[in-house]
């Protein structure tokens, strides 16, 4: 029992996700205390991937709810299949109200689906800061009680409590009630060793020297003043692109290398901030 958080970390790394100690602790506590875990951090550091890795590690289904402005209960929890109900009413006059409002006509959306699974699923609520405060209130009730009330059907209780992961990009302040309900973990850009481990986990065939060069270069680019700092996902894209282009050493072909930076630099201002000379200097230091 005492070493469980380390075993969580090991399970996640077997699924291909390199988690920091603090993150593994937060996940372990969320499983023990059955509380949701809220992940914040810059874009592209692997918040969504944690949920996928956790689902793979625990061999659970991943149910994903992507939040957006204007998301409401009918898109997130449940909705009646109105067209089918109307057809049923028209088709036979003997259809009573009870029959029309039965489970057959209920469309289950992600939250209701997460609650009615046999085995505990992983529920990923992505970018909760895009939804508005009213939705957070719905969500809070469901997370706290683990049950959903459909007026026509009654209360549906969770057969198996899902493992809930919420991610946020920080575009909006989340309500205090939601924050206090959840455990918190801030995922920052990884340091050199961790990022190298991530690269080697995701691209096992990559050569050691090239991997080190890639990591050094990306870390140096992150230290420049950019508008959109490249995250881990961008680094993996770039590594895959380099192997696809057949580059084995970063100092081989500067022109192609500069053109391949489209994977890392996503705005025009950023591309101007790293002209080929700067890139050559960075690569020179990394080699």
């Amino acid at each position, binding site marked *: *029992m005492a070493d469980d*958080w380390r075993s969580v970390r090991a399970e996640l790394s077997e699924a291909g996700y390199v988690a920091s100690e*603090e993150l593994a602790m937060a996940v372990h506590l969320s499983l023990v205390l059955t509380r949701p875990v809220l992940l914040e951090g810059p874009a592209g550091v692997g918040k969504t991937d944690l949920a996928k890795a956790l689902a793979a590690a625990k061999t659970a289904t991943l149910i994903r709810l992507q939040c957006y402005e204007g998301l409401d209960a*009918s898109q997130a929890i449940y909705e009646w299949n109105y067209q089918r109900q109307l057809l049923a009413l028209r088709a036979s006059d003997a259809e009573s109200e009870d029959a029309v409002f039965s489970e057959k006509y209920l469309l289950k959306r992600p939250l209701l689906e997460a609650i009615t699974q046999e085995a505990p699923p992983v529920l990923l609520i992505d970018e909760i800061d895009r939804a508005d405060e009213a939705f957070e209130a719905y969500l809070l009730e469901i997370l706290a009680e683990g049950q959903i009330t459909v007026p026509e059907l009654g209360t549906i209780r969770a057969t198996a409590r899902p493992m809930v992961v919420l991610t946020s990009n920080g575009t909006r302040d989340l309500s205090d009630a939601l*924050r206090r309900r959840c455990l918190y973990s801030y995922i920052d850009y990884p340091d050199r060793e961790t990022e190298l481990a991530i690269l080697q986990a995701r691209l096992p065939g990559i050569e050691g020297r090239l991997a080190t060069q890639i990591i050094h270069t990306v870390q140096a680019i992150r230290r420049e003043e950019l*508008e959109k700092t490249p995250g881990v996902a961008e680094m993996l894209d770039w590594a895959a692109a380099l192997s696809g282009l057949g580059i084995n050493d970063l100092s081989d072909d500067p022109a192609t290398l500069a053109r391949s930076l489209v994977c890392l630099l996503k705005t025009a201002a950023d591309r101007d901030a790293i002209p080929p000379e700067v890139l050559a200097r960075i690569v020179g230091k990394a080699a």
Partner: protein
Amino acid sequence: MRATRFPVQARGPAERMAGFMAHLRMNGVQAGPRETEDCLAALASVDAADRATARMALKALLVPDAEGWRRFDALYDAYWFNAGKQRQAEVKADHIRTQSARPSLWHTHMANDAETGTSNEMRPDADDDAADCAADCAAEGTDGRLIATRTENLTRRDLRELMDEDSLRAAERAAERLARALRDRRSRRHRAARRGQAVDMGRTLRASLARGGEPLDLFRKHRPDRPLKIVALCDVSGSMTVYARVFLAFLKGLVSADARTDAYLFHTRLMRMTDTLRDRDSLRAAGRLSLIAEGFAGGTDIAGAIRQFNDSQASRAVDGRTVVVVLSDGYCTSPPDALADALARLSRRARRIVWLNPLKGWRDYAPIARGMAAALPHLDAHLPANTIEALSALEPEFAKL
């Protein structure tokens, strides 16, 4: 940061944990009885004897957001390893004073005198200072002490004695009307409406049951309007001192009228003022402001402040439905290109940028200052704001935005 004395005579881990919770509460972290229970449960499920493990477990539970994440380690060390440098004076209060009704922001800076004694005190940075006010909870004293400090504040900063209730109220009313003028409500969530674009299937079906299954009554829904929100950046440097009282009351009005408004002050650095301004008592708000905004009468680095805003807060505070209002006279110590760059970057994020310039209210004013001239192309509106009347006249301008 305030540190309590670690209770070596405590009767067990529960009491020590309760002491830790009290320490966190004193430093602005919300940690109530439920959090204490959860912490004990969490520690029971991990190897609590290992320092690193216990630290991580408590960090996951007690931290509410990114800023708390950074501060937690320091708070943890201060309590469990006695690394804090300040000691709270032992106030043996048998009855709990009802000061919990007053938010901790408003305990006055009693500790200002006590703080100067320590040498390696960690100086919290500007954002912590403004937003979390960790250092001023020693006001669990008597009323006599509080009154003395308030009088002391009056003589220390003359900003407060410039504020009289009438002009404050007039400026606030002007600001509230302004905020209301921006309330143009549009949202993607559908609301019921008489004549809307989409058919509200739910209500139609429900009503059809009463009609024997025939959807004879059609109900509609549409998307109502979504309000614009305001983010205000106010210059409080030396050249703006004369207008400070009007502008601060104006900001207060903006902030009170709408819960989503954000307000920042800047002179050489940027400070978030929203919570401070939201206090109901105007004089107390002024007292707090004058204490926080040290360097009030210095030079201005507008470009640096806007750049700092872009880097740290803008991704959170500014989006496509935001109007950024800058109140400044345009005299900037940094080069004009820097100001133009910072404004260009901000204008990509915000819907509109409005510059309220007190100098523009003067006759024959032309933006000769290079800073102002460089900024003009990036602004959507450049309006005068030197008197209450000028502020009231802003309402129709804002409605056009």
